[in-house]
């Protein structure tokens, strides 16, 4: 069971690089914002799985909750900024 979750974790880490490609070379700003949000969501899942592997899910759950909150604030600030600029 643990090796399965380790494999899932490594797979998600590789997927983060695909999203990172979209952030760096994304043609539009919308792509970049959504890819940043997707990286945040993947990081959250990776954190919870790491918590399961270490046997301390409740500790890593707190960290991932804070991470989700900061991710939401970041996306909100970026979307507000670019809506005001109107050049997406």
């Amino acid at each position: 069971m643990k090796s399965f979750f380790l494999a899932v974790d490594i797979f998600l880490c590789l997927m983060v690089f695909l999203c990172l490609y979209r952030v760096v070379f994304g043609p539009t700003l919308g792509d970049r914002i959504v890819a940043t949000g997707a990286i945040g969501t993947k990081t959250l899942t990776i954190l919870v799985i790491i918590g399961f592997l270490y046997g301390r899910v409740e500790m890593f759950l707190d960290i991932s909750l804070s991470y989700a909150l900061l991710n939401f604030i970041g996306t909100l600030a970026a979307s507000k900024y670019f809506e005001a600029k109107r050049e997406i």
Partner: protein
Amino acid sequence: MLRQKYEDVIAQTSVRIMVPFVQLYALYVLAHGHYSPGGGFQGGVILAAALVLIFLVYGYDDALDRLSLGTAGRLCSIGVLIYAGIGFICLLLGGNFLDYSRLVSILHVAPPKARSLGILGIETGVALTVMAAMYSIIMDVANSETNNNKGDTAADENQTGEICSSGK
């Protein structure tokens, strides 16, 4: 630009529902700092995040109505006062600075409980200070942006042309 209200039903409703839960979570992080990651600084940052959410969505003036910069400055000082006050109470009771076990003679509980309550007290002070300082920094940054633009709008519009004027 950042000072304006964000006229969006989804953002406003979600933030209105989220803010109390974010603050509750901040208090959990603050009080549960012994057993899980967290503590005064992290709890204060999450409390400030709730205020930043209000500022981002409901605008600069509404955020100032809820917590003015003067009150934030006072909260900042009160947090330091709580921290140093608990430390000096321990000093007055005959121990070292922040020697919580001396608080037994005031609180009338067992020494481990007194240490735990003392740490919770100073963490509360740290959280108040961090929250007020973060909030003041963000509000000052948002305020300075518009003040600079007010000074030379003509030069701004000549430089960046259509993007800037359509933004207003």
